[in-house]
């Protein structure tokens, strides 16, 4: 059934219209584009509720902590003063996918927002490999419900102050509470036996008596080093997930405190893929809404007026101020993501000679959606940019790379959007989105549980970028609170192993 009458005229929305618009979008998105989103739940909220949602990381429910109140107070004031607008929508990576839309939006905005969130973001959440392997869309809301109740119960039992102390400390370590790489699942007994058998068989098959006659190496590592190695082995060190380490190993934590650390860690892990895919996620959603809205207009389901209104919002969203513009605040992820995807589309359909050189697999393959979907599924920002940022986008956005060495008086332009510079600009931009470079690499390297129990951390410094001192000191204090004994941090150059800076030992606050 295809009618070509406009879905709506005028700015007002009501439920039947929203339903109708959703169905029309869905038909294009699923049947024409072949997207694969979660089922959706569209929730209509007021601006106050949007502010509420803002303050708890956009989630519909969350445990209680003063910092969320702080964010709320600030957002509210900015909003009331008209310094910032509110987001048009919030979307939650859950199954069903929750999309919040605001009551004061016009019908065109609601249509746009549904196309953006319920299909763009939702498809991305469901298909991107990071989200698939790291987040549990089915369970997250239930988990948050549990977390909220658990924290509340702890507050009741142990007092809000005690809980706040643990949460403050855990929040300070939140960005270092994620597993960056998938871990091996521990084997169960059956698998363990199986493996043992296989190894035995292999040994038997490859047995050679000759090995016995080789002279033994004498000495081995000094006993102290061996003790250190054994200790580290037993504790699973070095460990970069500080919250995980504390949860499992901190000697003086109560059970409930460990559980709270775990909650913060799970939340942090849940948001980790979002941090790594800002450009792609927004790019995907923006490209999808642009495609959907254009198709709706082409088939007569959107009036010209509505389409103009849409274009107005769309251009605002993908607007990229230049570096010397007072509005500039970094690269707009919507703009960058959208530009790269539109450029891919152009390459697939109308490739130039340059495209054939740069992207032989993509140029002229004619399969826009297939190329897009593969990109959305298998990359994250860093690799996405490295793989798909083409020279045309760099030219259009006039990207250039600046080297900022704190020891030099001046900044140096390293590469610009020309033949000699494309690859350098691309590499630098990709590195800019590499979380592993962005966040300091801090690991627990040693602790002597049978001795003074002092926890030793190491920051492996890249490019001489040391930690921000006052913040680091505060975090160390929090860390000592959780660990219960002294904590030391030294900063070591990743290349030369030379110690660059040493923080004095922080003892836990007496209370």
């Amino acid at each position, binding site marked *: 059934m295809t009618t070509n009458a406009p879905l709506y005229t005028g700015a007002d929305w009501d439920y039947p219209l929203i339903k109708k618009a959703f169905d029309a979008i869905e038909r294009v998105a699923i049947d024409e584009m072949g997207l694969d989103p979660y089922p959706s739940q569209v929730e209509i909220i007021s601006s106050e509720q949007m502010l509420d949602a803002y303050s708890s990381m956009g989630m519909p429910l969350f445990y209680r902590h003063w910092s969320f109140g702080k964010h709320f107070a600030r957002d509210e004031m900015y909003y009331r003063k008209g310094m910032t607008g509110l987001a048009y929508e919030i979307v939650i990576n859950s199954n069903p996918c929750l999309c919040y839309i605001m009551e004061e939006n016009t019908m065109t905005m609601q249509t746009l927002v549904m196309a953006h969130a319920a299909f763009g973001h939702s498809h991305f959440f469901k298909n991107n490999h990071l989200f698939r392997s790291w987040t549990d869309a089915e369970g997250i809301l239930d988990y948050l419900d549990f977390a909220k109740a658990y924290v509340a119960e702890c507050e009741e039992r142990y007092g809000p102050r005690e809980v706040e102390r643990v949460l403050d400390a855990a929040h300070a370590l939140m960005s270092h509470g994620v597993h960056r790489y998938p871990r091996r699942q521990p084997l169960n007994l059956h698998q363990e036996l199986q493996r043992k058998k296989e190894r035995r068989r292999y040994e038997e098959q490859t047995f050679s008596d000759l090995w016995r006659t080789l002279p033994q190496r004498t000495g081995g590592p000094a006993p102290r080093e061996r003790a250190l190695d054994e200790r580290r082995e037993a504790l699973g060190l070095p460990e970069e997930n500080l919250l995980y380490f504390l949860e499992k190993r901190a000697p003086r934590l109560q059970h409930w405190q460990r559980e709270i650390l775990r909650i913060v860690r799970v939340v942090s892990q849940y948001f980790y893929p979002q941090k790594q895919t800002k450009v792609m996620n927004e790019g995907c959603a923006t490209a999808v809404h642009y495609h959907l809205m254009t198709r709706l207009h082409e088939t007569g389901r959107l009036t010209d007026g509505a389409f103009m209104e849409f274009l107005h919002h769309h251009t605002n969203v993908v607007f990229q101020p230049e570096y010397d513009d007072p509005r500039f605040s970094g690269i707009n992820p919507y703009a960058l993501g959208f530009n790269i995807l539109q450029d891919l589309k152009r390459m697939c359909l109308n490739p130039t000679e340059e495209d054939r050189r740069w992207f032989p697999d993509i140029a002229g393959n004619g399969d826009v959606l297939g190329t897009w979907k593969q990109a959305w599924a298998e990359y994250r920002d860093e690799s996405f940019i490295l793989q798909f940022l083409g020279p045309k986008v760099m030219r259009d*956005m006039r990207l250039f790379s600046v080297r900022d060495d704190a020891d030099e008086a001046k900044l140096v332009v390293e590469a610009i959007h020309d033949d000699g510079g494309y690859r350098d600009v691309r590499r630098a931009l990709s590195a*800019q989105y590499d979380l592993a470079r962005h966040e300091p690499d801090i690991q627990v390297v040693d602790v002597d549980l049978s001795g003074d129990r002092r926890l030793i951390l190491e920051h492996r410094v890249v490019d001489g*970028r040391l930690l921000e001192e006052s913040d680091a000191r505060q975090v160390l204090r929090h860390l000592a609170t959780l660990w219960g004994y002294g904590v030391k941090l030294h900063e070591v150059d990743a290349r030369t192993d030379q110690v660059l800076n040493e923080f004095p030992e922080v003892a836990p606050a007496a209370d």
Partner: protein
Amino acid sequence: MVNIVDRRLNPKDKSLANRQRFIGRARRQILDAVRDVSARRKVADIGQGGEEISIPADGLQEPGFRKGSDKGLRRHVVPGNKQYVAGDAIPRPEGGQGQGGRGGSPQGEGEDAFQFTVSRDEFLDLFFENLELPDLVCTQLTKVKHHGLQRAGYSVSGSPSNLNLARTMRNSLSRRLALKRPRREETRALDEEIDRLERSGKDPERLRALIRLREEQVVRAKRIPYIDPIDLRYNRFDPVPKPISQAVMFCLMDVSGSMTEDMKDLAKRFFMLLYLFLQRRYQHVDIVFIRHTHIAQEVDEDTFFYSRETGGTLVSPALEEMERVLRERYDPADWNIYAAQASDGDNTPADNPAVVDLMESVILPVCRYFAYIEVAEERGWEMTTDLWQVYERLVKAGRPLAMRKVKSRADIFPVFRDLFTPVELRR
């Protein structure tokens, strides 16, 4: 397939608990800020609407391990190149912003002040935290009936909103078990078996028995309802009489010609605070406004705070007026009596004996607390006034009288707090 839900009617203020936690944490800083604000505002504005305050961010940062921006080597890719080619050197931009693409920390942290708005209620709560009327006693239990509700177990009748689901369902379940009401699974199993037997046509004997059993079950299930009125339990609330303390506050203000506009402003500010404080903290406090020149009259609050008047100065008429009101309306046996007086300390010397007499014989014996505020010019002479001397003698005699001097707007709040902070909480 989509589900559209209207959430607009859901309870608002979901983050209220977080906000309270935040305010609790920033209490000290907020209190300082509130005090500054109270000195700045106009009399009429105190306690009106919300208040924007700005507090220092210490104790409110959310630290994290971050790479510093002042050391080492970084690369930024930024859009909008106009004139640069590779190898160009650019002077470092001022303030470190703009060029870098670091765009400030998203949390808006750092050493900056943190700005936000507190609501009127929050403002006043902070304003009057820990203040109370001294020596308030419950005087009246009989005259005014004031009841509170208290949980008192369960009852078998009540309004539907008080239905206790857990209890009700527990009763229902135990009754169903005791009376052997057929369970739905049993019925279903029976149905299936009947169905099977009917299809196969085997064992008609058993089929008949089963059908009979099934019919019995239907009857039984009908007779034993799932929830019976006897299962219902309601939360019960008992009314408990609550003792209340009746109190009256007399506000005496000198508005004579010797008071300059500034002094009147100070006095009014003080009373405005007192008025807000009493209104907010005590439901059952009457307030009597008396202003005086050489004559005194009881007025309503608008006249008291906003009208202008001048004349000579006599203090005793004000005290007489207070005495008249006391006699007519407030029996000291039933009421806690408080008074606050503001004046520049001027009095016609001939009036002083009358003042002493009134205070000693009538006013102070019935007062729980009498606060005297003397307002002075900011750069006035440091001299003791007539009234101050008179009252000082009374204080020495151990009367419930407190005296303070106020010279500037900034003094008002500390003096006010000082006068109404309970002894236990004073440092």
